[in-house]
């Protein structure tokens, strides 16, 4: 009997101890929404997934966050807003994730943040460039990635440096595309008066862009700005080249979407991208902090591929969630949001901090996202060999820009 009386409390105490240790070892679930199937940009989705997995491995190999491993739970959005909304709903309500990240398409992000805001769950936007995402003013939403206003300023400054008089942009019919095309117009009006600018909206699903291109043949612009994701961007470049509109000695192409580091870029464009200027968020010649070098090395070891911008953006998204939990010593939304608002942390691309300016696109945005401009100078050129014509934080160096002969 004594042994039985002694046995029950011991068993209960043991059970508690086991439960406590089990809880301590419970993984921290992070929800990920990416496009893993068409019509979304699966190229981007794959790069984001790779970046998150590299970051998760680095975190977990170092012992996790406050003793718990990070577990990524994926949902495929297909780049469709309704599916993104449902995906975030499922991740929060069924999977009980502590934060959501990974989104790389603005339209899907705009749908996803509504759900994250409703449930008050931190949402780290990896690559939705649309300014509207921050303009909503949701405290749960943080953006350590690029944003349309920054690209618009870069485009306007570049057009001014190039001495362009007539600029035409082709944008996709999405929040990102149309939003950026409008912002570029506003920035050109503000910073580069005298440049005539117009934009044409193209349907991502449609494939014949000639009716939009043919009117340019009579009076080609100085620069065509491309604001589209693949495969629409590839088709546009090919059809511009097919009609002899660009690239030519008269007309340059400026890629505002950063498509030159996509794995399928060269197979799809060939010489249609000759001398194209590229807005770049990553170039191998950009200086990287130690964490960036580690992520790049781990990615290359894992995939045998060269690093790309989305790798770093995705890795930073997850590192930031981990940092917030570590700093807050909690996975509660309010504590994580407070930690993120005060964060000053060196990630893969530089020191990240979020603006607290509440009005407009700056809210919870990392304003100093580093960028460069590089130029494609040969067909099938790897990004590492593409010519850097603008260093981070410096103006465009016109002496380095090559013109099409």
């Amino acid at each position, binding site marked *: 009997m004594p042994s039985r009386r002694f046995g029950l409390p011991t068993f209960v105490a043991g059970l508690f101890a086991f439960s406590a240790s089990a809880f301590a070892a419970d993984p921290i679930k992070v929800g990920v929404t990416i496009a893993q199937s068409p019509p979304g940009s*699966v*190229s981007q989705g794959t790069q984001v997934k790779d970046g998150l997995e590299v970051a998760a491995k680095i975190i977990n190999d170092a012992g996790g966050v406050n003793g718990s491993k990070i577990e990524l739970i994926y949902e495929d959005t297909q780049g469709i807003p309704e599916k993104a909304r449902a995906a975030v709903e499922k991740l929060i309500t069924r999977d009980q994730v502590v934060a959501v990240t990974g989104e790389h398409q603005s339209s899907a992000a705009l749908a996803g943040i509504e759900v994250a805001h409703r449930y008050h769950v931190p949402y780290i936007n990896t690559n939705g460039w649309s300014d509207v995402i921050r303009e909503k003013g949701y405290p749960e939403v943080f953006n350590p990635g690029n944003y349309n206003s920054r690209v618009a300023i870069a485009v306007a400054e570049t057009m001014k440096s190039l001495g362009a008089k007539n600029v035409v942009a082709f944008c996709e019919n999405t929040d990102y595309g149309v939003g950026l095309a409008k912002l570029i117009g506003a920035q050109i009006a503000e910073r580069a008066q005298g440049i005539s600018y117009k934009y044409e909206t193209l349907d991502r699903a449609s494939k014949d862009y000639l009716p939009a291109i043919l009117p340019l043949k009579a009076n080609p612009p100085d620069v065509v700005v491309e604001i589209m994701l693949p495969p629409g961007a*590839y088709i546009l470049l090919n059809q511009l080249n097919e009609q002899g509109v660009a690239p030519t000695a008269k007309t340059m192409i400026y890629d505002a979407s950063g498509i030159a580091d996509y794995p399928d870029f060269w197979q799809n464009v060939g010489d249609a991208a000759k001398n194209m200027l590229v807005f770049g968020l990553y170039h191998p010649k950009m200086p990287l902090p130690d964490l960036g070098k580690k992520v790049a090395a781990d990615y290359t070891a894992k995939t045998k591929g060269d690093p790309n911008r989305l790798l770093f953006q995705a890795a930073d998204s997850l590192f930031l969630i981990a940092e917030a939990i570590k700093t807050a010593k909690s996975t509660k939304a309010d504590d994580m949001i407070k930690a993120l608002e005060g964060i000053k942390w060196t990630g893969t691309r530089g020191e990240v901090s979020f603006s607290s300016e509440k009005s407009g696109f700056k809210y919870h945005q990392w304003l100093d996202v580093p960028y460069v401009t590089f130029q494609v100078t040969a067909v099938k050129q790897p990004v590492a060999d593409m010519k850097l014509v603008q260093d981070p934080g410096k103006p465009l160096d016109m002496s380095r820009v090559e013109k099409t002969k």
Partner: protein
Amino acid sequence: MLTLDLLINGLIIGVFYALMAIGLSLIFGILKVVNFAHGEFYMVGAYAYTLSALALGISPWVSLPFALLVGLLLGLVVERLLMRPLYSGYTSWGVMRDEYAVIVTFALSIFLINIVDKVVGPYAYKGPALIGISRITIGPLAISGHRLIAAMVAVTVIIVVALIIRYSFWGRQIQAVSQNRLGASLAGIDTAKASAIVFSLAGGLAAVSGALLANIFNPTPDVGVFPAIKSYVIVVLGGMGSVPGSIIASLILGVFESFGGVYISYQYRDTFGLFILILFLLFRPQGLFGEKAREV
């Protein structure tokens, strides 16, 4: 000169639309159902052409008939496995004929998109050009060499198919089944065989269309969705089941979209077909070459 550019572009696009729409029209003529997986036959043809040329390094002129063969076989297999219950009595077990066709072809469409996405991958692949001349300049006109040659091949295929249907033994049987399935059956025509030929031919035509456009529209797994929607519009405009009607409607739509994209608005270009469709449904519901019919 812009006018001529737009006209030529419109006619070329119209020819590709026609290649797609003829198959759909034939299927409707014979089986009286709409094949919702028709766009995926196009997609499979585009991939068969592109991947065979890229992976095996063979000439695109060999890849083109290979794509046709893949399309023909796919059409044949789909007809035998999925469409035959439509006219073999199985649907009388409780499933309505139209419901069966919609469900089975729609499911096939989703299946094919996803299987290609998983097996080949989501990335775009630009198909090889049929000729090495990137741009042919005739006076102030410039046109890509591939686009011009592809359009000529498409016209040739359309003419050959039209001749086969009009004059060949099996073509006449197809016409007979299209006019009256029961009557053709009573006259000794193997209606099942005619249906199989039509489905196979439709698959082949869509696949050739996809192959010819693979250099221009860089195929992805969902590349067939948009051309399929255009084809549905064309088949109704031309008159359900009418091959000449489909050809003329394709050319009209191609040219209208080309001019409308410039003189009305490019943003609304893809709605022009739907606008014309509404007008036709209001004022000439039988389409250009369709026959007025009423069933009780």
